[in-house]
């Protein structure tokens, strides 16, 4: 009897362990000042999200500069200590178009030391890094060398964001020498005035889906929980209106609703710091909950269960309030 008792206990423990072994979700944090509000803290708490991918700074090699420079390094606050932070550095592709091979090592060092400086200010350490770069066939060699040198210098886990076109055309764009990639399952369409959603469109996703299974890299997936609006003038996009509350156009007499996802400026006016000319159109692009569930279905169907982690872009209450509170749980439950 004693023997059975022990095996029963063991089963219970294993079951408990299994239940606890819920695959984690994470978020990107993409602002220049790290400061979470109550809503954002709650989202993290309720979804047991410990890991944050935090944008530390951009790197750009501007036409008027003689060397690459960091753009808007983040200001952290003490609450950063509560999280497992993975710094993300966005490197504008033109940096690698202009960078000479002889200056590569210097750039690696500068990026490395800037991360240390940012961390030191808050007296904490990070042990992993992610590079975000929309590299091309032309820049792949120098970008991959950059990653390689960074790995050797820092001895850290290094990941990179992977765009869908880079998955489909891997023979041309190459596979970066990283520990894992984060598949950006969004921003797949052209940003234009047509009726498609540039953030996610199933028909566009289908052009890429079949290539995910065979991508030779361990993968996480990044899912969009952001929205934006496009300002269209004569049918062409002239400005991206980031993080605006689309419903507020409804109560503004300067605007008229012309379709489900569009308003038109009846009169020229200012709103939220943007200027609208008469007849400018505002097209909303956002990802409703059903699309997010559809994305997880797509990932389930096409990734062969190889996605280890879901990361949401981005942690910002302006975005998150547009969803029911249990959206992340639903997505998680829907994800195989």
């Amino acid at each position: 009897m004693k023997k059975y008792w022990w095996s029963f206990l063991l089963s219970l423990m294993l079951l408990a362990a299994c239940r606890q072994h819920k695959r984690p979700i994470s978020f990107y944090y993409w602002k220049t000042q790290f400061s979470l509000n109550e809503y954002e803290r709650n989202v993290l708490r309720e979804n047991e999200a410990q890991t944050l991918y935090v944008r530390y700074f951009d790197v750009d090699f501007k036409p008027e500069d003689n060397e690459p420079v960091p753009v808007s390094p983040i200001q952290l606050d003490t609450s950063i200590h509560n999280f497992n932070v993975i710094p993300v550095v966005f490197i504008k592709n033109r940096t690698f178009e202009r960078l000479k091979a002889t200056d590569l090592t210097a750039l690696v060092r500068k990026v490395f030391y800037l991360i240390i400086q940012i961390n030191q200010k808050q007296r904490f350490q990070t042990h992993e890094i992610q590079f975000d770069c929309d590299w091309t066939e032309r820049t792949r060699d120098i970008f991959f060398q950059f990653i390689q040198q960074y790995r050797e210098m820092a001895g850290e886990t290094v990941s990179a964001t992977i765009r869908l076109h880079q998955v489909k055309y891997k023979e041309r764009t190459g596979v970066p020498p990283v520990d894992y990639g984060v598949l950006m399952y969004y921003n797949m369409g052209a940003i234009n005035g047509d009726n498609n959603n540039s953030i996610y469109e199933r028909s566009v996703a289908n052009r890429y889906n079949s290539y995910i299974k065979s991508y030779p890299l361990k993968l996480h997936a990044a899912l969009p929980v952001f929205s934006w609006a496009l300002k269209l003038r004569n049918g062409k996009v002239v400005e991206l209106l980031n993080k605006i509350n689309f419903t507020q156009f409804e109560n503004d007499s300067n605007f008229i609703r012309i379709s489900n996802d569009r308003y038109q400026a009846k009169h020229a006016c200012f709103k939220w710091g943007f200027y609208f000319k008469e007849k400018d159109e505002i097209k909303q692009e956002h990802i409703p909950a059903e699309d997010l569930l559809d994305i997880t279905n797509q990932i389930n169907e096409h990734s062969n269960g190889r996605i280890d982690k879901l990361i949401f872009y981005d942690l910002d209450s302006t975005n998150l309030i547009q969803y029911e509170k249990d959206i992340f749980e639903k997505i998680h439950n829907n994800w195989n």
Partner: protein
Amino acid sequence: MKKIFSKKYIITGISSFTLGTGIILACGGDWEPEYNSSFTPEAFVDSTYRPFFYSEWLFYYGKGHDTEHDSRFNSSNINDWCTYLGIPIADGEVSHLQLSASSAAIDSASLYLSGKAKALPSTMQSFQLFKRSNKKLASFISYLSLAKKCEAFALSYPKYSWEYETKKNNTDTVNAIPLNNELLQEFTKTKDDFLKERYWFQLVRSYFFTEPHQQAIDLFENNEKVFPKNELYYRAMAYAAGAYYKLKNYSKANYYYSKVYDGCDLLKTVAHFSFHPQEEKDWKATLAMCVNNDEKATLWQMLGIFYSDEKRAIREIYSLNPRSEKLNLLLSRTINIQEQRYSTWDDGIRTNRFQIQSDSTTKELSSLVSRIAQAGNTNKPYMWQMAAGYLHMLNGNSKEAATWYALAGKKLPGEELPQQQLRLLKIINTIASTTKADSKLEKTILPELEWLKSIQPEAPLRSGTAFGWIRRTMADRYIKQKEFIKAVCFSNYPAFYVDNNNVEAMKSFLNKTNKTPYESLCAKMYTLTLNELVEYQAIDLALQDKIGEAIIKLESLFDGRQLPGNPFNGRIQDCHDCDHDAVQKIKYTRLSLLKKMKDMEDKIKAGNDVYNNAMLVANAHYNITHYGNARAFYECRVLGEYHYSPYTIDSAFRRPLTDMKQAIKYYTLALTTAKTDEQKAKCHFMLAKCERNEWYNKTMFNNSKYEYGDRQSVDFLPWNGFKSLQQYSNTQFYKEAIKECGYFRTYTQK
């Protein structure tokens, strides 16, 4: 001057959308307009508005980005102090003290002047300034001592951008209370107006950085009436505007920025950068603050330029004051933007070309500009008349355009640029209003073309687009009229040279001694020289294997161009770089190569060592085509240079420069006279290379849609040369070919 709203910049500057696609807003290049433009803002608009002239890619015309945040007032500061102290600017002493000396060094100088230190810092010991010590100097140094302390937080442009702890946070390290107290004390105490204004500015700025912001506003507003409206006044006002912005009083902030924009030329870009109405009510409140129509006109100009709603701004300003000079910038911008619609992509030259064409989107602007031009009540009626004419002309209405130009000509000022602008528009219109290039037109445009030809590229008048259009339009007409010499003089086109009769006719034309004035102009416009034509003929003859004739042509030119590799090499795998790097006992010039080929061809004719000579001549013929190691042989003004792919060769010359005919002829001859299996194997392989190149020519390079490598099907076939080579598998050459040539290896494994 510090940029007031770095945070605003940060918000817009970061990669908000970067985990995805973005919109490319800017790119590098020259600052001069790289787009098609024939309407010169400098002819009409005050030069203080220059940063806001229309620029296609980067907002500020002529500079792209404003990088003078910490330096824009350096020279006027030095100038002001030198005048105050009564010393020359040229000796550089004030400049050193203001820009280079450290805060500690200035403090030491101050102690020296007050007798508390025995010596000056070493860098200042030779300064004449200190040899005639006076009260003004002491005031200057004590002012500078406080100013340097403020600079620790007020100058923000990071000197080394990879340093995380930039000066932006330096307000933390400065004890602001005693500093502000000292500034306030000096401001209150001094009776000297010059110093008083400076201390006032320093204190407003210091309050802006060290807060509370209301203190900066109060100090500015309680004292602004006593100071002259000079640079320093507007600098102080800009900080008060910034303080209002920080307090979210956007309407007042923007009102102040509009006054700064209007009152201080050096701060125009700063005001532009900081002016940012949030909601319509802010904008309306700002308008309501204006005390006169001119202030309102400034606001409308800012809206029109900064938010690209020029037409609305023109209407509003015109209704406030038709004579407002603020309309001029708006008109020049809207015309410069509109004229871009008359650019169409030309695939041949891979750039946009100006084209006159009807465009209905111009109607609204055209009727607005015509209405104002008709009224004739602006401060520069001729500008509106020219603009109205230009818009009509762009749409192909040359008759209406001519009427407007005639009106503009009646009251044109004597200044050179407006005169030149009208002349330019008229010449375009004259040509646009005709359909033939006949003698009447030639007579009319002769002096105009001579004038256009004489304009230097760096001249302010934007004449390049118009001249390019005139040249192409006239060339097209001459081609239709079969006057090919004139056509090629106006606009050089490669197909002209394919017929040697044309080349000979051109040579005769250039040699003609009794040219008419119009012919002389044509010859001047022609871009090639007689020698360049002969050079081309020599190359063409060589490519046709008329080596003897080619030598005669080339000898007349004293051509000494060396070829980078040995043109007699024949490799299994073409490697131009390897050939160019290899040590060469004999360096061939174009002429010495042809002479050597001639010797060899003579030997072939005489039956002397035919295999070897034919093989070498074949290699040389191969190498002087695009596929070979001696492309330098054919590079010239007519055929072009730096062809990195056959697609970059003009279609008129692509065939002769990629033709394998001569190489095949001599490799075949070598094959027929080959004695050993090794020799035969080599000939078959070389012929396979030629066959492959011809296959590329036919399947890929004659189809521009494959230019960017989108051709997905097979990239090689079982060439006849490969098939024949298989019978020589016992040879050393065969083994080497297997080793070096992947295609052949693949073929043999199938």
